[in-house]
């Protein structure tokens, strides 16, 4: 407000409007909360975000172009580096896709080995998802507790195949090597000590009132929106859609879990499977919000422990080969095949086109997080800036898989 001095009798008072412009804030590629190199451009009016535009491609490594120059077995290390927190599941997805093209069934023992490995990987991956989510929201302890348990799983994987992160263990035909002697006992010992620890995580995060305030009713996604945007995995099941490729997928995917008893973790009529065992759903939580997506992951960890135990029994009693890999330059039949498998972060699809030689014509990876992330622009309308890490963290994305 300013005054202009005219006559003493005529003082004009001019009022300036207090303008609030919109600001474009860059949550740049390097940021502790964006789960990798993700750039979010926020259009904010003060603290309220009116629009979020995700920019990806900072980790694009042209894996698909490279896949046109290598045989399928040689491409397996590239699949490891896509969702690097769930490398075994990526290897498994690509191996199953190539086996679908070649019409190659792995032996029974290899099938049970794959279930053990895939479900242990699911536990490890969800531990990262859970711990990193807590870290995004500002709690530092659950991250380290989760990684304490994850270290034990990584030690087991290192014994099996020599690597902690980029395994290249499951391959076309089975696995590169059998499990070492004593591995199954160590695995069972880990599961026995891990089961009571999950209750610690529930106490730290799931029932924590601050966590509940920050996650419930945030980023609510209806089931129609989730299906339309192609979301999958816990993101889809957190919105109440009953879809899990281990039960509902095509035969090449479900045959692996043939004979295993497990329940799909999704809320039906207000209840999750066996939910009397777990902390109750808080009244503020709406189906399809961040809290439900997180809760689905926690329950899936418990489910995976049970699956690993079943698989260990079956593997121990199975006879035959662990699944010798096919020749490195095995000629592929002419044709094409697409297969989606249930990776920890969602439905990971691989598409292979072959012209009859040992090298595929086209190797395409359909990333689950790619579709999960595309919902961000819709979910983050008219939220607060502090809700952005909560929403993006609940989608549990890995940029390696999005950018390939």
């Amino acid at each position, binding site marked *: 407000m300013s005054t202009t001095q005219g006559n003493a009798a005529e003082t004009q008072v001019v009022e300036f409007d207090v303008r609030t412009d919109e600001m474009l804030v860059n949550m740049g590629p390097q940021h502790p909360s964006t789960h990798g190199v993700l750039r979010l451009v926020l259009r904010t009016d003060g603290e309220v975000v009116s629009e979020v535009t995700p920019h990806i491609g900072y980790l694009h490594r042209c894996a698909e172009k490279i896949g046109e120059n290598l045989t399928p077995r040689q491409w397996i290390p590239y699949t490891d580096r896509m969702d690097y927190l769930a490398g075994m599941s990526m290897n498994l997805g690509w191996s199953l896709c190539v086996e679908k093209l070649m019409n190659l069934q792995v032996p029974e023992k290899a099938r049970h080995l794959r279930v053990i490995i895939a479900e242990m990987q699911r536990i490890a991956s969800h531990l990262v998802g859970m711990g990193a989510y807590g870290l995004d929201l500002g709690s530092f302890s659950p991250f380290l507790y989760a990684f304490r348990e994850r270290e034990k799983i990584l030690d087991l994987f290192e014994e099996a195949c020599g690597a902690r992160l980029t395994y290249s263990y499951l391959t076309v035909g089975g696995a590169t090597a059998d499990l070492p002697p004593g591995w199954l006992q160590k695995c069972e010992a880990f599961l026995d000590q891990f089961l009571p620890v999950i209750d610690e995580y529930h106490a730290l995060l799931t029932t924590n009132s601050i966590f509940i305030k920050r996650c419930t009713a945030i980023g609510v996604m209806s089931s129609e929106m989730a299906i339309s*945007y*192609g979301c999958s995995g816990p993101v889809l099941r957190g919105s109440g859609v009953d879809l899990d490729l281990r039960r509902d997928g095509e035969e090449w995917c479900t045959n692996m879990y043939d004979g295993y008893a497990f329940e799909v973790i999704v809320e039906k009529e207000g209840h999750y499977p066996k939910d009397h065992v777990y902390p109750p759903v808080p009244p503020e939580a709406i189906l399809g919000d961040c809290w439900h997506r997180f809760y689905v992951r926690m329950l899936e960890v418990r489910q995976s422990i049970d699956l690993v135990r079943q698989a260990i029994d079956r593997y121990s009693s199975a006879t035959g080969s662990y699944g010798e890999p096919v020749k490195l330059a095995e000629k592929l039949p002419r044709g094409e095949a697409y297969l989606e498998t249930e990776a920890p972060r969602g439905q990971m699809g691989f598409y292979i086109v072959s012209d009859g030689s040992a090298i595929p014509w086209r190797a395409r990876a359909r990333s689950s997080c790619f579709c999960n992330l595309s919902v961000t622009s819709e979910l983050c309308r008219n939220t607060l800036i502090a809700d952005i890490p909560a929403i993006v963290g609940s989608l549990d994305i890995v940029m390696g898989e999005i950018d*390939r």
Partner: protein
Amino acid sequence: MSEQNLVTRLQDKFGEQILAVHLDAIDPWVEVSADGLPEVCRYLHDAPDLKFDYLSCISGVDYFEADPKKIAKQEGKPRLEVVYHLWSVTHKSSLVLKVILPRWKDGQEGCLPEVPSVTDIWRTADWHEREVYDLSGVHFVGHPDLRRILCPEDWEGHPLRRDYQMPLEYHGIRCR
């Protein structure tokens, strides 16, 4: 709904938009003309006993043999295929649609072939079509925001094309 029944229904309803049918492939596929794609997709999405409400993947595949020694072995003419993998959440069935395009529009090198966008049917198509545009060079008519998604915005060329040559330099960085 068996595949043969589904295909017969599509052929009855859409006639000449359904160009070819391959039911004996590992993933049975139906070739659709580019102009008829939105109608066929809308029908597949809305019909209650089909309800293909989940678009799994859109891929661009370039069939062009750059090596002159191998041209004789290639099956079919050089072409660009846009492959749509559909899935039904309610019926747990899948279907593959293909749109086969010339590699350049009207034979003019540099003019991208065009396909109508299906983003208003499945929101998944938004980012997938951007990726096919970016890497394989297909222009999606009617897309709300068709720009590069994985490559930088000012990148030239479409990397997944078989005749793609890496540029010599990009902003002063030597590429090859």
